[in-house]
């Protein structure tokens, strides 16, 4: 008896151009097609090579997105933070210095040409001015969306924070008596990521399918032998700071938090990696927002409420999830915190990185 074959669906002929674009987006450069007068102009170029020094003395080649207008701080990993105010109309001039790339403003929701996904628009040739209006204060990030498994892993990402109209130091949260605002004294960013060093030896278009306009799903055009499904990190970091393998504890002030008793800490957490990340803090924390949407705040948040995570209650984030937590420690002390990294398929714990919140 022959075994029945469930064949790959045939490509509808009328979708041929769309199937081709899926794999080989066009390049485009120039101005925004429907420009609106901006309130903020920013610039980002990609990619720039960057060597990430490890505590063991060696380094890992990374790619970063640079701010070409900031000679002093324009080259960082993670790429330089973008800070906006709610209501800002942004023109972001993105230049592709090498090859073609895109920037997706993750959590920001504009039209497809401003969304930075090649297969729904284009990849940036020389340069393009992306345009969007940041209508909701919250925690976002930006990253390249081309050959994304590789380009995001290589470091092409940075945080994007939208403050309420009052500016930095105030966060949008459920608080009807205070116009849904709360002041914070200390702001911290925990952005755990991991590095598979084998991937960092690859080229921009590693393991991509060949462009074949005549038959975009021709079997011979697929690449084989790639490793982009096989993520085996051995460097674990938080907000650009790699943890030592021997003693994976980070006290670097980019990660470890320091505040006075009675102060309010706003902790913005983003999973910028490819593992399941589990966070445990030794302090009570109130979760006030997820993915740039404040819990409980009208109109769209009224179906949810902020909630308290008692000290030592873990929470888990997969890639791209962002939580905003408020901490209000009253008793001085050094409170440990940790991130555990679990393999996305086997569920095995790959690393535990510790840090701390110091209350003076």
């Amino acid at each position: 008896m022959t075994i029945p074959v469930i064949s790959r669906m045939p490509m509808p002929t009328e979708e041929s151009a769309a199937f081709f674009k899926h794999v080989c987006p066009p390049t485009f450069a120039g101005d925004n097609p429907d420009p609106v007068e901006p309130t903020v102009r920013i610039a980002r170029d990609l990619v720039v090579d960057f060597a990430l020094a490890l505590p063991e003395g060696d380094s890992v080649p990374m790619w970063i997105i640079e701010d070409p207008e900031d000679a002093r701080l324009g080259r960082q990993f993670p790429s330089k933070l973008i800070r906006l105010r709610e209501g800002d109309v942004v023109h972001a001039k993105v230049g592709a210095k090498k090859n073609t790339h895109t920037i997706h403003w993750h959590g920001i929701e504009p039209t497809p040409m401003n969304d930075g996904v090649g297969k729904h628009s284009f990849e940036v040739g020389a340069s393009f001015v992306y345009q969007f209006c940041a209508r909701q204060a919250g925690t976002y990030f930006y990253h390249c969306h081309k050959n994304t498994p590789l380009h995001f892993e290589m470091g092409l990402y940075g945080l994007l924070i939208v403050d309420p109209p009052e500016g930095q130091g105030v966060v949008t949260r459920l608080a009807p008596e205070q116009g849904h605002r709360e002041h914070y004294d200390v702001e911290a960013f925990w952005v755990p990521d991991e590095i598979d060093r084998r991937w960092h030896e690859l080229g921009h278009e590693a393991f991509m399918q060949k462009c074949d306009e005549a038959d975009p799903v021709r079997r011979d055009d697929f690449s084989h032998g790639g490793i982009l499904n096989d993520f085996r990190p051995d460097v674990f970091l938080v907000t650009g700071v790699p943890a030592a393998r021997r003693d994976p504890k980070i006290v670097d002030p980019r990660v470890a938090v320091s505040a006075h008793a009675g102060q309010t800490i706003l902790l913005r957490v983003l999973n910028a990696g490819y593992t399941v990340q589990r966070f445990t803090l030794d302090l009570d924390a109130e979760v006030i927002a997820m993915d740039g949407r404040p819990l409980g705040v009208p109109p769209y948040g009224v179906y949810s409420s902020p909630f308290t995570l008692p000290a030592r209650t873990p929470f888990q984030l997969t890639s791209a999830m962002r939580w905003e937590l408020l901490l209000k420690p009253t008793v001085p002390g050094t409170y440990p915190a940790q991130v555990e990294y679990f393999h996305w398929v086997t569920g095995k714990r790959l690393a535990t990185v510790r840090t701390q919140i110091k209350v003076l």
Partner: protein
Amino acid sequence: MHGHDLQWCISSKEWSRRDALTLGGVGLATLSLRSVACHAALGGPLDPELSIGEALVEMIDGELVYAWAFGDPRRGPSVPGPVLEAFAGQELQVTVTNTLSTPHAFAVLGTPIATKPIAPGATETLTFRAPPAGTYLYVDPLSAPVNRLMGLHGAMVVLPEERAGTPYSAPTPAVARLFGDLGTTEHFPGEPWQSDRSRVWLFGSVDLRLPDSISRGATFDMNEFLPGYFTINGLSGAFASHDPETIPKGRLGEPHLVRILNAGMAAHSPHFHANHVYVLARNNVVQENVVLVDSFTVGPTERVDVLLPFMRPPDVAGDPQTPLRDLVKHELGMRLGTPQRPLAYPMHCHMEMSQTAAGGNYPQGLVTHWEITGDLDGVDFPESELESQSTGGDRHDHSSH
């Protein structure tokens, strides 16, 4: 699986048979592969017959993979198996025939619904009442997770017993309020949810080495399991992105329900572009705290229902009252390889390894589209002349290192 440190919170609310009593009626509809078309059209009893058999499934790059598949007698085998659809409390009869040479079974995860192991060549008939409304994963639970990963899985969709404004038998206050607000409040102009605006997205993944070992009668160490192909409703990449039964499509103000199930072994992190989504239910627990997120976790065997509100993408620059057809008319009139209308956006898993096929070939993995075809006032984006402004797909070839 051994050595699995990560516990998935599959906290399925204990299903009580008592909850689902009393409603009579017959018929569980076996719908076409991937289809959850309108149940109302189905008349008398359609108790499904399922067979368990062999198949060769073609991956997106043409690789043929040996699989075990559920099938129905008319349409043959499919991976995933046919979508089963029923009303809550309905009495159902499922007949399962095992044509393979090893024992297999049928079970609906998170419920007591299960057959005993079915011997090779034997047929089992299972009679049960459909559980409360929601999204269920049926599998062959034997040798877990091997038989499931070999292809023996599918979705069961249970609809509320009565015409209800939500997809649930017992919605929480938050879910009831959300569905009540759709189309009736200033922040949700447009239409209420209509039950045919629903999609099922079943995530799967394939590691060629598992079926290869099974077909040779060899053993496979599940600790080595590492998928190389990732699917939605059995399709990958460009195919999943252009499958009309998979992609939500409509005008602004036409909210869609998306039922997501993960039959694979990987932790997925689905990410919607252009709209945040409301998480309505997790593993059949209708949520008390209905969060609005752009990325969320769907672990192995988990089921998550989300509402895609089809609201106007909030961060489009310019006057929010001006229809998009006027505000972004130049973009809508452009051709960049393909026309820029309708407004099409991706939904993809952000654990980006899942975007690959055969180790690369981005984005031919777990990705699909959703499409906005017109404005809130019911007017579709106009069919005007397209300006061709693209420089074309000009990447020539790719060096594979």
